């Protein structure tokens, strides 16, 4: 049994907070058997972080079009698993970024690495002119 929620937001950093808060409230709907409260807190926070990173990336690379950019979030809620997909119309990219070399004090380039690290499964596909990045994690 799964439910699906779709949400389209303007591609503007102001809406990052909306994306985050929606994600945390959706993530808190999931329940896991034999899971402790701190597992659930962690689960919610991991999604909050991953969506913040993905949304920020979408917005950052959205400047190349004339039409106002949008980002569409799709939440697929199962009993113990949540999958969040982000669709945007930006140029294609790769999710296989290497780990940041922290010793050289990098200021950027952590985003996709963090997403891959906190999620169970991250996939990227290109459909027509759209990027779709899907992130899922089981509680």
């Amino acid at each position: 049994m799964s439910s699906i929620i779709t949400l389209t937001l303007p591609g503007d950093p102001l809406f990052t907070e909306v994306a985050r808060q929606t994600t945390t409230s959706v993530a808190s709907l999931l329940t896991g058997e034999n899971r402790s409260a701190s597992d659930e807190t962690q689960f919610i926070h991991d999604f909050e972080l991953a969506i913040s990173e993905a949304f920020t990336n979408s917005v950052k690379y959205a400047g190349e079009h004339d039409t106002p950019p949008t980002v569409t979030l799709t939440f697929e809620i199962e009993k113990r698993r949540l999958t969040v997909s982000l669709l945007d119309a930006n140029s294609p990219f790769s999710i296989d970024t290497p780990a940041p070399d922290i010793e050289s004090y990098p200021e950027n380039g952590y985003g996709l690495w963090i997403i891959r690290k906190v999620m169970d499964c991250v996939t990227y596909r290109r459909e027509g002119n759209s990027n779709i990045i899907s992130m899922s994690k089981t509680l």
Partner: protein
Amino acid sequence: MKTILALREAECAWVRDAFPCVHPLLLPICNKPFIEFLIDFAILVGSPAVRILGDGELDAVERYCENGSRWGIDISYANMQTGDSVETMLGKNRRFCDKERVMMVSGFSFVRYDKRRDYKSLAGSMPEGEWVAGPGGSITLFGAPEKPEAQAADAPLSLMALDGMASYYRASMEALETGADRYVLPGYGGEPGCAIGRNVVMSKSVEIRKPVSIGNNVQLLGDAIIGPSAIIGSNVIIDRESTVESSIVFDNTYIGEQLEVIGRIASGNRLSDPVSGVAVTMEDPHLLSGIRKSEALGALPRKIVHALGALILIVLLAVPFLVVSTLLRLGGGWRSATGDYLSGKSGETISLGKVEPDAANALDTIASTLSLDRYPWLFRVLTAELALIGSTPLPAETQHPNAPANALAYRPGVFSYAEAEQWPATGGDAAIVERYHLVHSGPISDIGLVVKAFVNRPHEKTTP
């Protein structure tokens, strides 16, 4: 009195090399993670709160210990720099210390104590300063004694540096031999020197020689000899006529038939000699399963049986599939996602459509009862891309914790052996049962297992 447990990565770097899948603080000593011995000691000393301080990643430790409510204490985590002095370490945790007396346990050492003794009064009356020290670490007290009048209480306390495989092996064996007298050890012991976990299945002909410690979900097959001095982790299979003596077998390890593991550490597909430090990584599918002659001979009939089985299912299910899937598709209840999965050949992937019918109405129930969601996969058996029954296909893009060390121990199937066995659905258990059947099942038993999987599958709905 509060407790700070301080550990530097450099002190336990050898664990990362020897057992890459285990965080050094979670290294099992007699089937109990290292850090738990320290937590037990902190409790024995009367600490209500423990802070774990490290100069590396603590994520895995945090996931295991959480906030400590399991032990009835508060556990928190903090970072330090490798070169920090004791003063800096205390400064970084000033709020935690809160002007109370603090015990700092530092270094990667096994603390030898005796749970029956009164460490609380002893620690309370000890003067400020080093309590006990060893080559690999120390226990130091900060702040004035809580009870100025010194008590005559005396309890054994010493440290044993865990500086390599040899000392780790010694500490484990020592913990096993002193048994549950001095430490809190996991497992249920019917008699002293023999602790056994949950869901341990043992053939009648298995011989157990004390002392032994056995974890959860362990299968001991006919005529196996376990012990003396065997520490067997969880999700382990010891196959027929094998001997495990004076050895440590880590979680998720399969020990094949007619083998002799004496004075060794077996972890996954790695076998180490704790004394010389030599380690061999087995690249065979049957890890340690000895010499098998019939491997090549068995492969072809098995493929034919699988193809025939798939063909029969394709014919039988053709009508239900066409009707049900068309109806579901019209109603929008047939959603399919294509993903890449690891193929049986190393380095290659296959793309499979995964359908997840919702078990909400009658049609969906029919679909899942008849495994129609797997119907399209059956054709892949004919092209030999999938087995009819084998391992659960693993997604290609993730670093899956159960990802097989070599492709031979993994053959993706339409149905999985784990489904047939209704084995507890958690990853490690399922992986080991799949590996076991890959090695042991032949063409005939595969048919039986397919039937079992077909019948069992629809009942389990919780698997992710």
